[in-house]
């Protein structure tokens, strides 16, 4: 299995080298993140929202960027899996000495790695700009220390890690649909429809904690509240274990469903 994964990852890396999107998408992502940062900064300067702190602006910007990242995760996964069916390149792939499960897990690892790199590029760009323009200072209320800079840095990094974990869950969940459809467009449309349905479900408080959309958005929402000195929606411990467990369950269940469907899939085209 490990050897097969190495083979698939090596092939994916080699393919990525030859694709223009490998260079264009990160550039657009960083540019988009910078635009979002300046939009949030502008709103803060005009006193429309929040306060002029590096932590606050990073949290709000990243909260927006996470939605774009989730969308990129869906697109990347659909093109990586359904795209192989659409092009027909799955036929030469599956007639090589690599198991279908390894091919699938290798693809998901590649997608997860790509989305992690994109997220980190955005995060670094936003944090660097926020640090340069506003600084990462302690949050003070008059003489009283609300949150120390070190404490907020720890939470910000934890939130970033939780979001990356949730983005991996998004990749895994998308892959289930990508396995079923032979066209990336059909897979993406279905994922969007399901996401919309899940968003509607979020209106019900009972359903909210188990939704993937909650795993994706809640960590930076919590960080935004913290950086503004507001009461936290959840205890940090609760948020961390709940998000980690929820995304983890999504990953395990969808990986099982996706890999089982892939092993049973027949190539009739």
């Amino acid at each position: 299995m490990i050897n097969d994964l190495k083979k698939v990852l090596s092939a994916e890396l080699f393919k990525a080298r030859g694709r223009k999107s490998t260079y264009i998408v990160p550039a657009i992502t960083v540019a988009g993140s910078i635009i979002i940062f300046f939009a949030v900064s502008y709103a803060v300067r005009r006193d429309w929202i929040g306060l002029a702190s590096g932590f606050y602006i990073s949290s709000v910007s990243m909260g927006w960027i996470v939605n774009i990242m989730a969308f990129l995760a869906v697109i990347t996964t659909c093109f990586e899996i359904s795209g192989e069916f659409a092009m027909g390149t799955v036929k030469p792939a599956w007639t090589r000495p690599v198991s279908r499960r390894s091919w699938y897990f290798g693809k998901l690892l590649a997608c997860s790695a790509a989305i992690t790199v994109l997220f980190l590029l955005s995060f670094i760009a936003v944090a660097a700009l926020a640090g340069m323009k506003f600084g990462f200072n302690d949050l003070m209320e008059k003489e009283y220390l609300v949150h120390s800079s070190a404490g907020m840095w720890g939470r910000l990094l934890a939130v970033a890690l939780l979001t990356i974990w949730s983005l991996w869950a998004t990749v895994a969940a998308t892959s289930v649909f990508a396995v079923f459809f032979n066209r990336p467009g059909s897979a993406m449309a279905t994922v969007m429809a399901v996401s919309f349905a899940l968003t509607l479900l979020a209106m019900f408080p009972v359903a909210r904690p188990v939704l993937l959309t909650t795993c994706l958005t809640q960590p930076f929402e919590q960080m935004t509240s913290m950086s503004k000195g507001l009461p936290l929606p959840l205890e940090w411990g609760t948020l961390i274990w709940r998000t980690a467990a929820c995304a983890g369950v999504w990953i395990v269940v969808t990986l099982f469903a996706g890999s089982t469907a892939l092993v049973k899939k027949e190539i009739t085209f």
Partner: protein
Amino acid sequence: MADAIEKEILGVAGLGKRFGRVEALRGIDISLSRPGVYGFLGPNGAGKTTTFKIIAGLLRPTSGSVSICGIDVHENTREAMRNIGILFDAPAYYPYLSGRDNLEVFARWSGRKAGDGIGELLEKVGLAKAGTKKVGEYSWGMKRRLGIAAALLGDPPLIIMDEPTNGLDPAGIAEIRRLLPELAYRLGRVILFSSHRMDEVDQVCDRMMIIKGGEIIASGTTDELSRAEPVVEIVCSDTDRAARILSGTSGIEKMDRTGPDRLRILTPGMRAAAINSLLIEAGVEVRQVMESKESLEDIFFRLTGTGQDDQ
């Protein structure tokens, strides 16, 4: 060495496949052990590609089994795939990569070293110069050549080719006709290939299997499959009249006009001399009468009951 030659390279036993209510394959049996070129013929929709896809592990059989070098394809696909190279009817590649890089990707999936033998393969299929060009810029013929190179990657003992010469120019076809026997007899490979070109199959295949309606209805060499009775070909002044006269005669099974002054007659009941006498007595000027063996095309149409239009 003798053991290696006798080892079954491809074993297909009682293969059946249903798509809903449609029974695409029924009890297909194939056993190939000796190096050689084996033809797989059948009309469109007969089940050739379905059989190939099951052998390649892309479809699961409803019944029966497939083994490659003794390894069951559907129980241990990964290991079985070490021993097979396949050219599909419509080979697919990554258009943004060059031909060489596409082969590199395939080689990496197989766990081979980077660049391992790829240059030689490209040279073998006549793509040495075009290897660095992006596949998106390749012609159909170049893509097929690249597909052949991909099938040969890793020197598998079994090579399956679904219409390898389809879309190739005459030079490409000649090259493939030269390559297949070389692979089979010099390098000891077993090659199973399908083609719509009977002359091609006749020229390069040792044995052939004819499939119709999901069943293999005949297999053997051209000599084994052809009938003892000859085919009579006549060259005469008035083929319309000759055809009218002969069509009223018992013992004529099939008659085709093969040229403006030529008729080809399948007649188990009459010999050339009798046909000649019949036409001369009726006042038709007969310029030439020839007896020949049944061609593979005749065999194919006789066995499958299809006309050339069905092809």
